[in-house]
């Protein structure tokens, strides 16, 4: 698996903004799905306020001719159905003088935070025009305008809307299409900004999937058959995707009373031999910390998907940040080695989760998987994935013999695990320190040998080349992780076009650290830039603690919710060169 390098590709980024109920998300999603039917790649994220209904909302789309799920530097088009509360998220929508702002002529002046970009402003009587159709809505006028600008044919818009409306039937569809047509008319004189010509797509060649759905599917493919759930933004969709899927394969999802319960439920299931998972976000992960330590000590495999949001505390639940690395790596009390992994993109949620299940089961250890709001809730176009054969396969003591030792001190550090039902394999799993046979012990030697064993099983394991995605080459290396990867990827490609050569190391395996592999990857590198979305540069600190770097090393970091954009990375690197 290597990173794609999207150079010479077409790309257009569009914001659709509007206050609650204005339907900006519907406009954005319909445009995106229709574009995908035409052969566009790209992704759609959203920014929204804390309100359940109403409140500000914006759909942030990027359409690309080549696979790319990262952000661009700015938006070429902003379409505002209205201007309500736009100042709350204006910094998340960079505009430039060459951007185009399309807005309702009746919605008042363009707010200063937007107008100051110097972008060209085009006003249409959006709301008024919508009224020409009975029950016509302004957001459909907006859709028409954008469909014109992106050259998306009516038939695809109609197909997409038809699928969405489904049972609601023809009447609404006709109203919508008529309103969309009015939007097209309004914009008829405008230049088309982006168009794409592709071979007709084969059904199923491409998927539209969110990172949270991909995480659910990856987990299922990896062998997860039990899930305990406590809802939390922005992780709920992982659980809600798994809820109807699990029973299809003989699995179960149980809603727990809280995260203390959900983590212990999955420990119970996994102890019983059934691979288990839960999904949560920062506050929930914090509540699971004690019992994650139990899973480490008792050697019970499990997977926790943590979809990161702005912290600390309740923080900013609806927005993204890469600031749970520390708690995931270091949060457990005592010395408690475990796995921490992170998908690198929406698409990688699929692979990374499947791999995580595989690793956790193989090593009888908990794995914390750090996804984030950005990729978790993004909808992206991906190529139909090819199945992996990594499936949970625990080393089971099928024939435990006479003196079965659950925590036998083995060379690999992995001790064959008995499962309830196996005759003669009875033992007591324990969070107390124990002897090889599992009896509680406070003896120095038992403690030392079990601590060594629990660490050894992680450090000796062969992670092949999945530990990181490495691409490009040069004397400068970028190290990054998570959803920041795609921007870094695009930055490397752009630098290449400017004649600057850089290597990108995107870490999928956070712990255990892989100093040997890293050293090999850094041969010939004399500068390293570490890029991440956290206030305290958590990845940077982690790398300094667990790796040796002879090259000079710098950090580029900032907290959420602003995403790190490719142009910023390019600038950082060019300034350093």
């Amino acid at each position: 698996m290597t990173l794609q390098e999207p150079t010479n590709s077409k790309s257009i980024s569009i914001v659709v903004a509007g206050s609650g109920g204005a339907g900006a998300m519907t406009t954005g999603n319909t445009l995106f799905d229709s574009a995908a039917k035409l052969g566009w790649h790209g992704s759609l994220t959203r920014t929204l306020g804390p309100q359940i209904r109403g409140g500000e909302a914006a759909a942030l789309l990027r359409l690309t001719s080549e696979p790319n799920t990262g952000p661009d530097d700015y938006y070429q088009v902003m379409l505002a159905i209205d201007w309500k509360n736009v100042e709350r998220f204006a910094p998340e929508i960079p505009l430039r003088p060459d951007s185009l702002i399309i807005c309702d002529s009746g919605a008042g002046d363009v707010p200063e935070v937007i107008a100051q970009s110097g972008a060209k402003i085009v006003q249409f009587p959006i709301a008024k025009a919508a009224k020409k159709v009975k029950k016509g809505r302004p957001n459909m006028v907006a859709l028409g305008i954008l469909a014109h600008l992106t050259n998306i044919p009516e038939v695809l818009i109609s197909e997409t809307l038809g699928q969405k409306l489904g049972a609601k039937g023809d009447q609404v569809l006709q109203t919508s299409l008529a309103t969309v047509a009015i939007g097209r008319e309004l914009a008829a004189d405008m230049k088309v900004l982006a168009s794409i010509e592709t071979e007709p797509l084969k059904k199923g060649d491409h998927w539209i999937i969110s990172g949270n759905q991909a995480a659910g599917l990856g987990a299922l493919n990896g062998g997860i058959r039990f899930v305990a759930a406590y809802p939390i933004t922005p992780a709920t969709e992982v659980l809600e995707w798994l809820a109807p899927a699990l029973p299809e394969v003989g699995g179960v999802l149980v809603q727990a009373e809280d995260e203390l319960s959900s983590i212990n439920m999955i420990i119970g299931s996994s102890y019983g031999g059934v691979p288990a998972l839960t999904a949560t976000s920062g506050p929930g992960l914090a509540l699971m910390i004690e019992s994650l330590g139990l899973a480490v000590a008792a050697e019970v495999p499990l997977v926790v998907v943590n979809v990161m949001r702005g912290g600390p505390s309740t923080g900013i639940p609806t927005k993204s940040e890469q600031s749970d690395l520390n708690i995931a790596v270091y949060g457990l009390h005592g010395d408690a080695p475990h796995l921490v992994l992170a998908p690198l993109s929406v698409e990688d949620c699929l692979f990374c989760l499947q791999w995580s299940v595989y690793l956790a089961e193989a090593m009888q250890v908990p794995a914390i998987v750090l996804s984030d709001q950005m990729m978790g809730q993004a909808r992206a176009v991906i190529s139909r994935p090819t199945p992996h054969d990594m499936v949970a396969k625990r080393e089971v003591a099928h024939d435990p013999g006479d003196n079965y030792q659950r925590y036998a001190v083995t060379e690999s550090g992995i001790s064959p695990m008995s499962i309830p039902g196996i005759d003669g394999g009875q033992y007591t799993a324990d969070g107390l320190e124990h002897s090889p046979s599992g009896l509680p012990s406070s003896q120095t030697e038992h403690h030392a040998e079990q601590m060594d064993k629990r660490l050894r099983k992680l450090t000796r394991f062969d992670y092949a080349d999945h530990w990181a995605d490495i691409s490009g080459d040069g004397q400068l290396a970028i190290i990054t992780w998570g959803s920041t990867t795609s921007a870094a990827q695009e930055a490397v490609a752009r630098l290449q076009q400017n004649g600057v050569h850089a290597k990108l190391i995107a870490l999928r395996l956070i712990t255990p650290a892989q100093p040997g592999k890293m050293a090999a990857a850094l041969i010939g590198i004399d500068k390293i830039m570490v890029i991440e979305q956290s206030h305290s540069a958590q990845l940077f600190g982690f790398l300094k603690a667990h790796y040796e770097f002879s090259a000079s090393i710098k950090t580029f970091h900032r907290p959420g919710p602003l995403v790190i954009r490719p142009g910023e990375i390019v600038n950082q690197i060019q300034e350093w060169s």
Partner: protein
Amino acid sequence: MIDMISCEQIAPKTSPWSATDYKSKLKPIWCPGCGDFSVLMAVTKAMEALQLAPKDLAVVSGIGCSSRIPAYTSCYGFHGVHGRSLPVAAGLKAARPDLTVLCTGGDGDGFSIGGNHFMHACRRNLDITYVVMDNQVYGMTKGQASPTTAPDWDNPLTPGGTGISPFFPLVIALAAGANFLARGFSGDPEGTAHIIKQAIEYPGFSFVHVLSPCVTYRPEQKEWRNMVRPSPVEATTDSARAARRLMTDDGFNIGVLFRGDRQPFNLHHGASKAASSYDFGAQFEI
């Protein structure tokens, strides 16, 4: 001591499993005279009566003197963290409905830190049996008040007593929807064994509250053997009647006190398709 429950023969002599088969060789850390020894005995006798193979039995617990019990049995055991035994048991039973799952622990573990799981386990009604050894004290941490401790019991952490009215586990369990309620006394291992046996057999969540003296921090509890009595009335199936009874009960009536009629939690098990044959991808196709 009074003659508790008529000493019926709870397991035929010819049975393949005897009570001692359910005991491990590990020596308990308990103080000599601790009530928990007899509860261990009662548990193993109940297992003998049920003739379940140790390999198909799982004993789950939290942390506390009483919670040490799993490793003293020859079954599969799980000694988790303080207060979280019921969720572990729930996950195990939900994932492995074929196993018999016994959850065990103390009053601190179950009603203080674990109180929420207790309520929700009663509601959820998975087919689990929960045996709590209540000594009205935190034994393991050397003698502090638990939720069931009388408000005026003097101790180092709350000198003069907590001043808080005690928690009535059976009342809470009933209010929360438990399906089978009983009280046992460690001084009567035969009777307690019989109760535990019935609890395991009863479908849904069964709660057995066992008075089990802490001879070290609550030596006065040795008196309990003179205070307990068999419940004067038959177990009711009516929850309002049970509520009235339990709310006026002095805590020393021993026996099965309530049998509900709720269906155990339905796990929606039994899907026919294998993962590979089900195409989850279709929903994502463009």
